[in-house]
């Protein structure tokens, strides 16, 4: 545990997690891919941070950097990740290697994680109960019988029917929604301070999705844990998040409270994405406004602002030349040269 930094804490007391300029690169034959290119965000105790972005924006890789579960060929190219669970000790996660004793204490204990596809995340050859019990026995030092009791309680807590029977069920015996509940039970088994949810409802039907979102919300307030909720679905993020960060090509382009993101977005990418979703009961117009072009391939990220070739507000001579600075408006951050303009326009509304 020698890696733990116990020196001067720079995190405010309410802070749970802080990422500062995190970089993750992938050296490929075709060139260097900066999958995460200077990402900074923080999570306060008990809040839900939504991370939205299209595939390839780096939202999942950032989460894996927190867990120190990056693919083997990934290069940790800098940045700092600080984490302080409710037990009070402070971890500099960015200093920990993927197999260190310290990270294995954090993973599954202080930080739980749930994934999109529970069938690949859960072991197919062990019962749900065994998987939950192992985690509890490892981190909480409980005996077999006590761990089994707790596993059954957890299954009841995630509202699985007949927990006493299902504790001995294998993942393949459960439906998709029930498996997702079992995975949530596993993730919260040691009372984590932070839950990372990576597209947990994407593979589910809307009715099951609504159930899982409600479950996560009630668990969050009951257990007082914070959640990082990664999704590409703006509807889901509007439902669950307190604050939202929007990612594009390895960077956060905008961070704000959920209301500001939806009603006063200050980055053209956020604005364009919001316009391109068909909304229920609102617009039955014939055409959806789209973002021109496509996400550039990661080997040839445009210079200046990475979004400039697709941006309807782009200013020639500025946006393709200069990296936009982070502009702040109260609690809102927009990485756009002309964010001030959006701030003024909105003031007139």
């Amino acid at each position, binding site marked *: 545990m020698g890696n733990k930094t116990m020196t001067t804490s720079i995190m405010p007391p309410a802070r749970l997690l802080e990422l500062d300029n995190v970089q993750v690169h992938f050296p490929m034959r075709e060139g260097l891919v900066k999958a995460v290119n200077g990402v900074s965000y923080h999570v306060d105790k008990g809040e839900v941070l939504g991370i939205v972005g*299209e*595939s390839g924006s780096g939202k999942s890789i950032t989460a894996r950097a927190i867990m120190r579960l990056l693919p083997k060929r990934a290069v940790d190219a800098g940045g700092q990740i600080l984490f302080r669970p409710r037990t009070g000790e402070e971890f500099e996660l960015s200093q920990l290697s993927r197999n260190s004793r310290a990270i294995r204490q954090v993973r599954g204990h202080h930080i739980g994680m749930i994934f999109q596809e529970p069938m690949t995340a859960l072991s197919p050859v062990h019962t749900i109960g065994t998987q939950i019990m192992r985690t509890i026995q490892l981190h909480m030092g409980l005996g077999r019988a006590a761990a089994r009791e707790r596993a059954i309680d957890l299954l009841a807590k995630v509202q699985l029917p007949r927990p006493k029977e299902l504790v001995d069920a294998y993942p393949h015996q459960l*439906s998709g929604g029930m498996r997702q509940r079992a995975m949530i039970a596993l993730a919260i088994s040691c009372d984590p301070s932070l839950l990372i949810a990576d597209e947990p409802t994407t593979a589910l039907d*809307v*009715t*099951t999705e609504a159930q899982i979102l409600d479950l996560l919300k009630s668990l969050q307030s009951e257990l007082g844990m914070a959640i990082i909720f990664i999704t590409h679905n703006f509807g889901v993020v509007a*439902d669950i998040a307190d604050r939202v960060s929007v990612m594009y090509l390895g960077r956060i382009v905008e961070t704000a409270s959920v209301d500001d993101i939806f009603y006063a977005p200050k980055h053209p990418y956020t604005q364009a994405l919001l316009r391109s979703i068909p*909304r229920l009961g609102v617009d039955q117009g014939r*055409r*959806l406004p789209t973002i021109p072009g496509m996400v550039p391939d990661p080997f040839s990220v445009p210079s200046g602002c990475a979004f400039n070739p697709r941006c309807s507000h782009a200013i020639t001579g500025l946006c393709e030349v200069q990296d936009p600075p982070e502009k702040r408006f109260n609690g809102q951050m927009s990485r756009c040269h002309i964010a001030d303009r959006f701030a003024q326009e909105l003031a007139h509304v």
Partner: protein
Amino acid sequence: MSEAMTNAAAMPDDVLISIRNLKKYFPITAGWLRRKVGDVKAIDDVSLDIRKGETFGLVGESGSGKSTVARLMLRAYSLTEGQILFRQADGSVVDLSGLTDRQMRAMRREMQMIFQDPYSSLNPRMTLLELVGEPMVIHGVGTQAEIRDRVAELLQVVGLRPEFLNRYPHAFSGGQRQRIGIARALALNPSFIAADEAVSALDVSVAAQNINLLQDLQEKFGLTYLFITHDLGMVEHISDRVGVMYLGRLMEVAPTAQLFAKPLHPYTEALMAAVPQPDPRGNRTRKRVPLKGEIANAANPPPGCSFHPRCPYAQAKCATEVPALRTVTDGRQVRCHFAEELSLVGAMA
């Protein structure tokens, strides 16, 4: 094919394809003799008309049978019972249910399908020329040079560069691959296209682009679509009429605007309520009671109305009597005993 045309008179002039009392049962077998012990009623008595030039949306949870309906219409599955009437380009009506495989192959020039997964539905060892030109080769249309010209033209139609002819699918993104699938479906100038979750796997901005493309193509070539999706926002945007399926049965059929303004079936109401909206303030005020439980097992469906165990309005009658799909007002059909008495909430603001 003459005996197959007997029912032609029964189909209204503006209808392109009509399915009547369609049933698809998959046998359940048991023991080493593989004796039949029951049926999975994947599709149970589904009837619907799709008019020329319209987009008919089919929604429902997974396991509701919506993909099976599409596959039956194109006779990718053999049907257990029922009729599939299809109006050919020359105006004559054919009952597809009575055709042999060889006769059916000729019909597929006019009926095509677009699939959800643009990764598994394209052979990675074939170039775009081979992939998009394959339908023409199979149907013996055109010389090699003509096929090449036609493929180049089709690629342009779907917004890909004709120079890509000799590339392989791996060189393209998900959205582009979906366009390759669309070009392939268009190769033989079909009149009917079944799109099975055609944009569900795509990112928000790419999905919007491809939806617009499908609408452009519909206008340009007078196409008729069966659009299958679980995304209610998308179905509302693209469809003229919508059918809601549950456990192999149609629960409600209505023109899109009417369905979303005022659903008549409790299941439709529940589906709409479950969709998280990109509207955080609205989500906070909207009372949302998530549907309880999960879709029943089709091998062992509940008696009476198949939705009654989950229905918040269920009464004693629902558990015993199977409701019929009946016409309530002009163009609106519903399968609920109490449709007139309930006052359900739609998705309109």
